[in-house]
């Protein structure tokens, strides 16, 4: 990994040198060959060893894994299709890593040969020199390797496996090792969209997911911005106390408050119906709100869910907006006042655009978070009440439906994988489009 300054442009090598460089590169068709030729013996041995190990692994278990991935097992009760699938994907990853290594070592042989052609003394031969060189030039790679390895196994690999499951018939009728799983191509999608009950469930869940995402997130953002503007007024007394209270919904772990609310919204014994509504009725004359059927009527359950999410989610936006508001110069408002702008005009033309300019990416993540807000939906009422078919309750959003399809009585792993795929695609595409519009990808260098 010598510095690139030691190489020169292609034309400046003599013909003989060029042939030599090409030959060195060609010798690395067997990894290590070029390195031996460059007289980097330890490196050559290491590369050759990696190559031999890879071949041995491929011969010993690898080829079996690949064929296992293709067939997913042949003997029911003996072959475990899922394990075969996972081992096959792992083997694909190994092969991919080996190919990456192969390209790198070809590149290495070529580059060292170039350096050797100009100044042979700059080529490292001893183990010590090579190790030092790795440390000196490979330091950032060494630092990031643990992160990559963990992500590979905790995120990329599982996502890959889930993706492959879409194209199988893995469901409650096909549970390995008793039964084999088979590749079924696009059948999962066909089933989902051609069988009426699935299509209806999917449509109904999807529509509520969109309504939920838009209304709950917009509510929490609006509430957050409004509260920040109220609190930003200079005359407020007890600002610190109000500040702490306003943050409490964020400070207390969400699962505690959701479970508390879930109990409070119990239609027969919960505090909302037994305490809050009677109190409102007694304070406001001529108002007679009856006890509402929270958690048993889909409409009122949805209202409660959106309200609670507003309660839970606004403090984050409030804190964010407060720090943005403090960065808006006061002169802008003064200038606007001189021009005769009223409060609403000032908000529309100064405050809101400024907030959006800074916080748009974060607002987007709020929308995508709620799109996937499993905790809220599942803990409040487990997606109930009632059912819209195929395990889904009337307040289930896509992600909690997926959870039920995976963990319920009659799991449909292939369908849940397909829905997950759709969810992820929607979230990623929407975010990417908006992120790149907001230039969040622009980096400093």
């Amino acid at each position, binding site marked *: 990994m010598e510095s690139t300054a030691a190489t020169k442009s292609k034309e400046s090598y003599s013909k003989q040198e060029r042939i030599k460089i090409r030959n060195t590169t060609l010798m690395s068709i067997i990894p290590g060959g070029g390195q031996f030729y460059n007289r980097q013996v330890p490196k050559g041995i290491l590369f050759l060893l990696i190559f031999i190990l890879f071949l041995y692994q491929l011969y010993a278990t690898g080829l079996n894994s690949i064929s296992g991935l293709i067939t997913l097992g042949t003997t029911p009760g003996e072959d475990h299709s899922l394990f075969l699938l996972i081992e096959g994907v792992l083997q694909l990853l190994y092969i991919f890593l080996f190919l990456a290594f192969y390209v790198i070592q070809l590149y290495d042989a070529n580059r060292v040969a170039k350096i050797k052609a100009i100044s042979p003394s700059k080529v490292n031969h001893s183990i010590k020199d090579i190790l030092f060189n790795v440390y000196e030039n490979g330091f950032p790679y060494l630092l990031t390797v643990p992160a990559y390895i963990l992500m590979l196994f905790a995120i990329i690999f599982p996502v890959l496996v889930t993706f492959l499951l879409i194209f199988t018939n893995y469901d409650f009728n096909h549970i390995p090792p008793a039964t084999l799983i088979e590749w079924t191509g696009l059948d999962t999608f066909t089933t989902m969209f051609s069988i009426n009950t699935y299509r209806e469930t999917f449509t109904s869940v999807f529509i509520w997911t969109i309504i939920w995402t838009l209304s709950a997130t917009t509510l929490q953002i609006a509430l957050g911005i409004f509260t920040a503007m109220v609190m930003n007024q200079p005359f407020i007394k007890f600002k610190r106390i109000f500040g702490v209270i306003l943050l409490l919904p964020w400070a207390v772990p969400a699962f505690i408050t959701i479970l508390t609310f879930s109990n409070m919204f119990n239609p027969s014994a919960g505090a909302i119906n037994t305490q809050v509504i009677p109190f409102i009725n007694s304070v406001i004359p001529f108002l007679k709100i009856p006890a509402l059927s929270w958690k048993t009527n889909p409409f009122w359950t949805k209202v409660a869910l959106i309200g609670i999410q507003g309660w839970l989610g606004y403090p984050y936006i409030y804190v964010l907006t407060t720090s943005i508001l403090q960065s808006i110069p006061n002169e802008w408002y003064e200038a606007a006042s001189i021009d005769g702008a009223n409060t609403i005009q000032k908000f529309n033309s100064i405050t809101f655009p400024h907030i959006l300019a800074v916080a748009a990416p974060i607002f987007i993540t709020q929308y995508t978070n709620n799109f996937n807000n499993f905790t809220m939906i599942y803990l409040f009422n487990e997606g109930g009440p009632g059912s819209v078919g195929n395990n889904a309750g009337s307040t289930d959003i896509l992600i909690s439906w997926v959870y039920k399809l*995976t963990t319920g009585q009659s799991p449909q792993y292939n369908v849940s994988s397909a829905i997950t795929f759709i969810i992820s695609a929607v979230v990623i595409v929407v975010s990417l489009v908006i992120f790149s519009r907001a230039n969040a990808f622009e980096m400093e260098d």
Partner: protein
Amino acid sequence: MAKNNHKKMKNKRFWNQFFTYVYLIFMTVIIIYPLLITVTSAFKSGNLISFDLSFEGELTLNNFRRLFNDTLYGTWYMNTLMVAVVAMFIQVTIITLAGYAYSRYRFIGRKSSLKFFIVVQMVPTIAALTAFYVMALLVGGLDTHGFLIFLYVGGAIPMNTWLMKGYFDTVPIDLDESAKLDGAGHLRTFAQIVLPLMRPMIAVQALWAFMTPFGEFMLARFILRSPEKYTVAIGLQQFINDPRQQRVTLFAAGAILIAVPISILFFYLQKNFVSGLTSGGTKG
């Protein structure tokens, strides 16, 4: 005319202040009410099936006693602490190293992998639930804390590496450069020059990582199957889920023992967290 205008202004200011305080008091009531219900219920005697706000009856510590004597709450708490501490150490080590590399070095694949981090952290954890299950079966990770820690840390890496890089960017690079001129190697520059300056930020990251297992529900529920392995979140859900058992007061007592320390940590950290987020969000 001028006097009239002045009066109008004063009037307007009065109403503005009036509505401001009405709004703040309204919000205070809405926020405090459910929290106060939980707090008071924790000290109530008797078996309730649901919450409400009342100050009747004597206050007792019985619920806390029952929590530790008759239920597995103590075990759950220790489980959660264990998971939290281990996950915190692994996570902070990994993201500090990676964040430093992304902030200070220009290496092949740097930009594209940073973009990749943003995309990857958008994939919901649940996307891989089935795969997690099969992986856990394969390595015997079902019902173990080790596998849960692995999932927590792995899932937290992209977002937090990104944040950590942002924090490292705020430490002036001149410091490293002058250290390198003085002959310090990579490791010394990192460990002796930059790392000490980052201590507050690393502490913040560590505490956030520590707090996650106390509130995380879905993965814990999915991986941990036997009651003595539960974390507090799933354990407490059992108390309130079954109305016939009438253990709401136990839930309240257990909830307080989590909510109080977590909220204190939260208020301690909150300022740092927000400044990190805004700088991470706008600058990249």
